[in-house]
């Protein structure tokens, strides 16, 4: 078994997931990441898996591989998600179902299989990514926001179900960050969101790392079931 902490970051091909993977690999963690497609980048201490988090067999296979190679899994950052901005009157069932499948079921599957490995060492840190568009009820994001509200509820309950094994489970909601996920959102819509924040700026990758750093510290063993939103959103 390795002496170093082992971390899994989902949705690590690009955007926030990639930043966090490189950030934590650079800090000496053994980082495993996944996405549906190949990662177009490499880093020391980083291994990529082509996995759809909504695919139960693929998730199990990935986490089995991590446990076999490293003998442990300490931290999971559940960042993988899909978003489609669409008025509810124009949202097909297939779009809604796929969003729920990836964002909710996918998060649950990774939490479940990771926790089974974490239980052996009575230690784990899980951070599930949500979004401020749920608490601010942003028009045009009904299904995405609903899926992320589900992630917050899932997280709060997992905190109670997994706490006895030393596993904490928290969620983190970023303000808009200029990634591919929001590149198609009209600028006036982004400006309106930012103007409604206490801190009137876009979020940054560093903001995300800062919150994750707090949640995953060993000293944060009494911080669980919480959600932290950036920018003053509650």
């Amino acid at each position, binding site marked *: 078994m390795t002496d170093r902490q082992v971390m899994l970051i989902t949705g690590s091909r690009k955007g926030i997931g990639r930043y966090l993977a490189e950030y934590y690999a650079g800090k000496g963690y053994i980082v495993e990441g996944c996405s549906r497609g190949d990662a177009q980048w490499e880093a020391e201490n980083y291994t990529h898996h082509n996995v759809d988090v909504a695919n139960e067999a693929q998730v199990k296979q990935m986490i*089995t591989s991590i446990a076999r190679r490293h003998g442990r899994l300490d931290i999971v950052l559940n960042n993988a998600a899909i978003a489609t901005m669409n008025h509810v009157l124009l949202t097909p069932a297939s779009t809604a179902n796929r969003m729920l499948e990836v964002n909710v079921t996918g998060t649950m599957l990774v939490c479940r299989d990771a926790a089974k490995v974490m239980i052996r060492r009575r230690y784990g840190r899980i951070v599930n990514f949500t979004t401020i568009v749920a608490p601010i009820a942003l028009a045009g994001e009904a299904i995405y926001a609903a899926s992320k509200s589900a992630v917050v509820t899932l997280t709060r309950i997992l905190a109670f179900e997994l706490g006895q094994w030393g596993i904490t489970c928290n969620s983190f909601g970023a303000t808009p960050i200029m990634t591919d996920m929001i590149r198609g959102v009209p600028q006036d819509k982004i400006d309106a969101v930012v103007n409604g924040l206490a801190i009137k700026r876009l979020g940054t990758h560093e903001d995300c790392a800062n919150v994750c750093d707090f949640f995953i510290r060993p000293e944060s063993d009494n911080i669980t079931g919480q959600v932290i939103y950036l920018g003053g959103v509650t």
Partner: protein
Amino acid sequence: MQDQLIDRATSVQVVIASLREVLDQAGEPIPEQLDEETVLVGNTAVLDSLGVVSLIVEVEQRLEMDHNISVTLASDKAMSQRNSPFRTVGVLADYIGTILKEQ
């Protein structure tokens, strides 16, 4: 197909070793005799409902780490059976054998 299968006696050993671990971790007294007849679910069980959850995870992890066998015991099929495949040590060992053959 798994890298290797295990015989029934080994399955029984894995379940009993897992049961000891779960009882020990929970601070529960370990009965003098743990065997195939030991009841895991119900009024006369040695575990409460959360203990059963811990046992299932412990068995899965022991199969994985000690025998290189990747298996999910809590499938839809298992949870919907009229007679729980987790009701005794022996029944659980049989169930492990069944799902390994099906994989």
